[in-house]
């Protein structure tokens, strides 16, 4: 009772308490009110403050998202996604957020520079643009006059919008066949497979929004795919934003963020994706789960068939039924027969389903890149997902103003017909470019000595060191020019650096890629150039004017901006600037047999008939390789040499090295951006360093513990990394992240000093060679061993 009274009396609010509470509540309310958007600024704005939002297009990866950059008094201060851009719809990824770190990076080269000492000595002299361009123009004119225009080569990485054709046009008009793309390391396999089977020269686009089953073979769909933000958004919608939830399945030896976010991760022995795809085809065909009408009416080479001479050839069906039985495929891939059968059944019965080929470097590069990609793409045809809603669709492009015609002068005609430096078309009959073959050919002087080499958005010394071969090759070329923005490993071995401006300082464009429908995204200067740098497009136009002849005719513009405005003159320029892009927003799927079907199947065929049929048996390959080539025209699997477990190498180097790109890796600014270094190993919480993932079993057997420093050694080289014991890795595989290990330009960061190395470059462990037919890179899986430092 006493207690009760006491409680009652205590629960009464005294006048003083009431006033206290009232005052506190009023103060809280006032505080919250202050959080509301103020109608008037609390502080008067300076009258001189000039503030604007400039719309442009990101260039930090291959997606090309729209950005809104806030500029105050001529300085860019904040980057956000452009809500009016169809690819990213207002989202800006971690990389995009670091644009300003790139723009204002102290690592940037501020002026053109000439290496006065020995290559790689670091004895640089800064020179003016006039002097630099004079040097290049004189060298190019001299070689042209001597009939050696073919001895000039240009290696390039990702080129956006009109820049690809600008580079091709420049070299063609100059008289050199040697425009060599880095594509052979990555997306080349997907492109070639699509052309050889579907007959279109394109990197496929996947309609994930409308798909019910997405199966990714390799790659890292949700971290490093092309059109990354669009893919993330579509995947989220597929799984959570619509009434019928789709399923995402990730096949990879390592559990990446994609695998973690997927509905299912299928661990697989490195380098065996092709076998799994063919094993799945076996189940689908055997169970008659394929789209019989589509396969009968719109494909070629499914059943055994006779050629024009009456010779019988094996078709896809009997090949996979006879050769890729579940037991055999399970033994090759390490995936259980039950799982293969289940995944195949799910894929075929949850249509629309789509099988995704990766475009990231190294993902298919096991010596089977082409046939692996063809095998994966064959699954799409089996379930009728070619240009179907929820399947593989075809990226369409807007019609722009025609390029002006020009005539090749005599010098250009002679040079342009010469054999390519990389062996595309000769040593490698099917190749479009063979980037990784360039150093060897330069060193051998084949097919002729190279007199001048341009490097544009590439870093061969880092990409394919091959035990120092790339450096030796650069040093052998008498005149090397780099367009690098920082002193990367290859630029360090150049004679001359013509520093490129960043994408926030230049005019340009991107073709919208990833949605299927046509579109264009505008890139425009957000700020004045921070340093004395220029856009490589402007530099090439300047050089063309200086060199004259067919080059001058091919480039009638005064600047790259002039070229862009000319090519995009069919668009409403004001709207383009206001929105940052233009697109059709609507994709029409071509029904099989419709007039549009001839655009999506067979359009770009060279020798094979354009009869609207998807080739399981590639008639293009048969036409080019001859009648004895039939087995090579079907997707098939050859066990990579590195997977043989009984060789001397396999005993001395028991682990298979896998790499997989990360969202924190910036392709052209690798290792340089502090925010990306700070968040580098999101999964393993590793910053400013590389880590090596080992399975529990392997770590236990070698008495290694999490956090221990180890050497990772291949027959070629060794690098250091920190051990991360990880359940999500194939038992005899180890994972090293790509993008670290730069040794010339990382000094901006709390754990690095000038010329020190941050992390390890996995490329240093890998011998990179080429597939004989296609020239696609063969880089793994490399064999390595691990031991404590």
């Amino acid at each position: 009772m006493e207690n009760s009274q006491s409680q009652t009396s205590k629960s009464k609010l005294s006048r003083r308490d009431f006033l206290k509470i009232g005052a506190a509540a009023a103060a809280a309310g006032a505080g919250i009110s202050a959080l509301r958007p103020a109608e008037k600024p609390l502080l008067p704005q300076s009258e001189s403050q000039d503030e604007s939002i400039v719309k442009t297009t990101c260039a930090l990866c291959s997606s090309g998202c729209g950005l809104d950059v806030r500029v105050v008094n001529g300085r860019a201060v904040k980057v956000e996604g452009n809500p009016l851009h169809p690819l990213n719809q207002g989202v800006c990824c971690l990389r995009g957020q670091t644009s300003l770190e790139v723009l204002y990076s102290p690592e940037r080269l501020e002026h053109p520079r000439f290496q006065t000492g020995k290559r790689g000595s670091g004895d640089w002299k800064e020179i003016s643009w006039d002097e630099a361009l004079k040097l290049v123009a004189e060298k190019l004119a001299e070689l042209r006059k001597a009939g050696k225009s073919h001895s000039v080569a240009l290696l390039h990485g990702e080129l956006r919008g009109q820049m690809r054709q600008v580079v091709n046009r420049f070299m063609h008009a100059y008289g050199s066949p040697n425009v060599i793309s880095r594509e052979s390391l990555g997306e080349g396999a997907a492109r070639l497979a699509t052309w050889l089977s579907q007959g279109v020269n394109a990197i496929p686009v996947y309609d994930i929004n409308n798909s019910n089953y997405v199966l990714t073979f390799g790659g890292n769909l949700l971290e490093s795919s092309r059109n990354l933000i669009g893919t993330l958004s579509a995947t989220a919608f597929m799984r959570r934003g619509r009434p019928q939830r789709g399923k995402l399945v990730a096949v990879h030896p390592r559990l990446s963020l994609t695998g973690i976010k997927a509905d299912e991760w299928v661990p697989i022995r490195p380098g065996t994706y092709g076998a799994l795809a063919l094993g799945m085809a076996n189940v689908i065909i055997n169970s008659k789960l394929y789209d019989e009408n589509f396969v009968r009416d719109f494909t070629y080479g499914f059943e055994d068939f006779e050629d024009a001479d009456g010779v019988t050839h094996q078709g896809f069906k009997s090949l996979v039924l006879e050769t890729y039985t579940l037991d055999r495929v399970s033994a090759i891939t390490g995936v259980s027969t039950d799982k293969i059968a289940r995944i195949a059944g799910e894929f075929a019965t949850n249509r629309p389903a789509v099988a995704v080929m990766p475009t990231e470097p190294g993902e298919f590069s096991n010596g089977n890149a082409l046939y692996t990609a063809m095998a994966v793409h064959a699954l799409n045809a089996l379930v009728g997902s070619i240009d179907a809603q929820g399947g593989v669709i075809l990226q369409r492009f807007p019609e722009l103003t025609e390029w002006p015609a020009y005539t090749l002068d005599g010098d250009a005609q002679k040079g342009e017909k010469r054999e390519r430096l990389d062996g595309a078309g000769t040593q490698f009959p099917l190749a479009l470019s063979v980037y990784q073959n360039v150093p060897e050919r330069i060193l051998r002087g084949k097919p002729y000595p190279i007199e001048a080499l341009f490097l544009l958005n590439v870093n061969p010394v880092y990409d394919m060191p091959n035990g120092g071969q790339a450096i030796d090759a650069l040093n052998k070329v008498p005149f090397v020019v780099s367009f690098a923005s920082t002193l990367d490993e290859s630029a360090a071995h150049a004679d001359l650096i013509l520093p490129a401006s960043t994408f926030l300082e230049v005019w340009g464009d991107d073709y919208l890629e990833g949605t299927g429908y046509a579109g264009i995204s505008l890139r425009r200067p957000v700020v004045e150039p921070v340093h004395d740098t220029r856009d490589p497009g402007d530099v090439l136009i300047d050089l063309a004017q200086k060199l004259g002849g067919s080059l001058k005719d091919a480039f009638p513009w005064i600047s790259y901006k002039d070229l862009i405005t000319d090519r995009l003159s069919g668009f409403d320029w004001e709207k383009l600037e206001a929105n940052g892009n233009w697109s059709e927003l609507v994709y029409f799927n071509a029904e099989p047999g419709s007039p549009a079907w001839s655009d999506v199947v067979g359009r770009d065929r060279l020798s094979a008939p354009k009869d609207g049929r998807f080739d399981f048996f590639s008639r293009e390959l048969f036409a080019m390789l001859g009648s004895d080539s039939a087995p090579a025209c079907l997707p098939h699997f050859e066990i990579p040499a590195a997977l043989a477990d009984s060789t001397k190498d396999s005993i001395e180097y028991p682990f298979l090295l896998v790499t997989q790109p990360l969202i924190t890796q910036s392709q052209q600014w690798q290792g340089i951006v502090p925010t990306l270094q700070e968040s580098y190993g999101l999964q393993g919480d590793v910053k400013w360093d590389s880590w090596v993932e080992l399975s529990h079993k392997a770590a236990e057997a070698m008495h290694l513990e999490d956090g221990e420093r180890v050497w990772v050694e291949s027959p070629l080289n060794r690098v250091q990394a920190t051990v991360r014991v990880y359940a999500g890795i194939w038992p005899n595989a180890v994972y090293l992240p790509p993008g670290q290990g730069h040794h010339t330009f990382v000094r901006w960061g709390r754990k690095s000093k000038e010329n020190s190395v941050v992390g390890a470059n996995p490329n240093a462990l890998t011998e990179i060679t080429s597939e004989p037919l296609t020239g696609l890179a063969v880089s793994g899986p490399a064999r390595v061993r691990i031991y404590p430092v």
Partner: protein
Amino acid sequence: MKRFLIFLGVLILVTAMFLAFLPVSTAEALPEYSAQTGEPCASCHISPSGGGPRGPRGQAWVASEKPGYVPDTLEALELLGVELTVDPAYFTVTDLEVQEAEALETAPGQGQPLYRWLGGYDGN
């Protein structure tokens, strides 16, 4: 202690009342629109999860004063006065004629290597 808890409780209550009366901005993507039309958010919005800029169907729906259904793509484009660069009929089959597969033949060299043939494509 109890006194303090009561004090805290009343404080939270009063603060919550303050918040309740704060002006709330009107969301542009409303689930009831989805219920009203029977369409997912993605039918109208570019972002599949709804909100933000609208695609052609969403724009046409708003322009036609939010009827009980969302116009289909072609109707929407017509309502918006968009001139398509393609004819939708081009993508559809009216009378299916399956082409016979041609017999397999080898072709002598085409005179130019693939990098020349396929090098000049559009795209990044």
